[in-house]
């Protein structure tokens, strides 16, 4: 019984962890705007957490750079399974305008499996809400499969 309640509440309140892998800050601002009262993603139970160990959904923005590569991988490895990785903006998907720079390495899915792409430069808060919605669905399916 107790376990059921815990499982139910897990699905209703996924915690977010945001990694800036080297983005220009535009996606980060839109992501924060998504959590503000105007768009209020917290209506759906999303909560921004400060530590990867408490997170369910990881939101990565920006291209993976030489500096951030190890840190991104290490941070994502600390997130307990099952986890969902959301690539915010065009940068993690391809490098965008930074592709080909001396400091930008591969796309994000070269290092970690990406579950949801939210393209846009930067995406509208509405698009981010859609992406998070999809992430929750994937998270639910992953939980069911894990059992």
């Amino acid at each position: 019984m107790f376990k059921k309640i815990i499982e139910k509440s897990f699905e209703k309140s996924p915690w977010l962890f945001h990694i800036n892998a080297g983005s220009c800050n535009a996606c980060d601002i839109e992501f924060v705007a998504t959590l503000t009262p105007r768009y209020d993603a917290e209506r759906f139970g999303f909560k921004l957490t400060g530590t990867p160990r408490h997170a369910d959904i990881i939101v990565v923005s920006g291209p993976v750079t030489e500096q951030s590569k190890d840190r991104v991988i290490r941070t994502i490895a600390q997130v307990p399974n099952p986890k969902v990785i959301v690539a915010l903006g065009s940068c993690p998907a391809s490098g965008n305008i930074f592709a080909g720079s001396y400091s930008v390495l591969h796309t994000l899915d070269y290092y970690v499996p990406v579950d949801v792409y939210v393209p846009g430069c930067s995406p509208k808060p509405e698009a981010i809400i859609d992406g998070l919605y999809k992430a929750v669905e994937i998270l639910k399916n992953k939980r069911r499969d894990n059992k």
Partner: protein
Amino acid sequence: MNFPFVKEAVNSLFKKPSTERYPFVKKEAPLGYRGRILFKSDKCIGCGMCIRVCAPGAITKSTKKTDDGEEITMNFFMGRCTFCQMCADFCPRGAIELTNEFSMITEDKSNLNVSGTFIKKLPPKQQAGSQTISKQV
């Protein structure tokens, strides 16, 4: 003592929340929003101007020889686009349009490709030693 915000606070008690009820109430992007690209392949002439002005290099062009000319495929990868609209501004034929579709959520990156194919007819081959040359001599 004076409380400058009391009036505001009391007024706000009776107002509707300013939160947008997005997924339940659909929302239109504002006028002039630059979203997913719409490529009209029947208008394109394959000049390559869009490829030249695209800063991230989101556009690729591939050609294939066929019987009645060249088959040209233009591919716009939305996962690399910055939505600057340079390609649409520079296209001499107006073949590119940035629609107001903002939500392009996908699990698979290959869904982000917008492409179009058309056949460019080659000019008819001239005969060796044709009239134009002989006239000039």
